[in-house]
């Protein structure tokens, strides 16, 4: 994967892009929270939550395909949740004899499995929408305003700054190794598994020392340009009345969804 993957932000002029980052973070987290709280099998309210997501997506101007395409990152985990199908808490639907073990899918299990998948799928899309419409430094700033520990947000801000530089360094190490991974004679090549792992370990050590020393130099470069312990940005970060309005509307909607989900 290329470093461009780090630039998850997709510039735009939409309503969602212009919303204050704090408001977006609070709504996104509440949305995910609400999904986790909804009982299994409340398909109607899941659909309502989905509508909310679709609306946000529409307003962001990113297009439907955008989040959809990226929403399958959690798919490998579906495998893990697959075993929930065999929950002993419901009515058995079938009996599968695999020889060494017998599996019995149940209705409650199937319901749970799909509920987990839907929750996850909705939540992931909301998170994608959040980072696609908010520049990462603003996101960190929002977390700071939301009382995340300053030490942590500053570490994260630095992490973000150095990420490009160090992954580039890692990429160059990989390139260096690749360009000398040769074989001309047609004999067995590549060395032993043990040796390959050890070479990779050396590369990690190499990367560590380089990162350490480079951090030293870059830190000095920042100092020499006036850095004094706090990173500044050009964005004013003010919650306007509009931000509050959207925030309150969204939270009210999510409360409603919860209410519907539980009276069902």
């Amino acid at each position, binding site marked *: 994967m*290329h470093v*461009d993957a780090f630039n998850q932000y997709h510039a735009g002029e939409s309503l969602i892009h212009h919303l204050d980052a704090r408001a977006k973070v609070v709504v996104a987290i509440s949305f995910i929270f609400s999904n986790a709280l909804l009982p299994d099998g409340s398909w109607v309210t899941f659909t309502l939550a989905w509508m909310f997501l679709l609306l946000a997506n529409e307003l962001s101007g990113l297009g439907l395909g955008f989040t959809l395409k990226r929403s399958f990152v959690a798919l490998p985990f579906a495998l893990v949740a697959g075993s929930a199908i065999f929950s002993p808490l419901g009515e058995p639907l079938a009996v599968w004899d695999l020889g060494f073990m017998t599996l019995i899918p149940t209705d409650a299990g199937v319901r749970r499995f799909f509920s987990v998948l839907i929750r996850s799928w909705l939540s992931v899309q909301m998170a994608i929408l959040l980072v696609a419409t908010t520049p990462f430094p603003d996101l960190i700033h929002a977390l700071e305003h939301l009382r995340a520990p300053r030490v942590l947000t500053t570490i994260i801000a630095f992490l973000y700054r150095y990420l490009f530089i160090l992954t580039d360094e890692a990429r*160059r*190490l990989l*390139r*260096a*190794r*690749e*360009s*000398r*991974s*040769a*074989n*001309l*004679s047609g*004999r*067995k*090549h*590549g*060395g032993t598994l043990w*040796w390959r792992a050890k*070479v990779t370990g*050396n*590369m990690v*050590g*190499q990367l560590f*020392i*380089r990162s350490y020393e480079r951090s030293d130099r870059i830190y000095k470069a920042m100092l020499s340009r006036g850095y004094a312990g706090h990173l500044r940005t050009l964005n004013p970060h003010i919650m306007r009345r509009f931000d509050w309005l959207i925030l309150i509307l969204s939270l009210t909607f999510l409360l409603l969804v919860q209410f519907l989900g539980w009276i069902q």
Partner: protein
Amino acid sequence: MPVKHQAVHDIRTPLCEGEILQVQDLEFAYPSGYAALRGIDLCIREGERVALVGPNGAGKSTLMLHLNGILGQSKAILIAGLPVIPENYPVIRALVGLVFQNPDDQLFSPTVFEDVAFGPLHMGLSEEEIYQRVEEALAAVQMSEFEDHLCYHLSMGQKKRVAIATVLAMRPKILVLDEPSAGLDPRARRSLIQFLDTLPITMLAATHDMRLVEDLFPRMVIMDEGEIVADGLTSRLMANDSLLKAHGLESSRA
């Protein structure tokens, strides 16, 4: 922005079958969408020494990284007749020795010995032969007594030499050098030139050091904005002031 010039080709034959390095209409865009190479044609005969010059951002490094498949496969490049595709990577990486612009990009093992031995080890050579090759390569760059040193504690010029040794130990047929003289003090630069002059292999070097070009490379290729805009005898191109100027260059005597 540089003025567009008619391409000046004078020693390239239109067809170059059988030559050791053939690039035909190579195009490449970085994932960001920037088209760094826009139709490169280049042929190099065995034993030839070619300098690649051009302004910053012309695409020289990008082209060099293509020559052993590091930026991905490409059927537009043939190395000794083999297209640069994943099946051929191991063979092509044994044929083409690439020395990166920055020696820190090249060295990844703790000691000088281990780093120079990486290539031969990976090729599956016998232990005996590995030792022999490492010694030979280090001797060639006058770094034999540094065998057990940590790569990481070397000076810039020493790193550069070790970087060249790591590639020499693989006995490549084509040596591809990206800015071999950058950062070297004048004495180290001179001894590098003298050493390269003794090597009998095919050589392609990207550089901004016009004196290096004049001293070592009879043939010169000028790149600009991802295209080859001139390819010919160094002596002739260096005399063409307007051509040089149009591409951000100047002869070392200017």
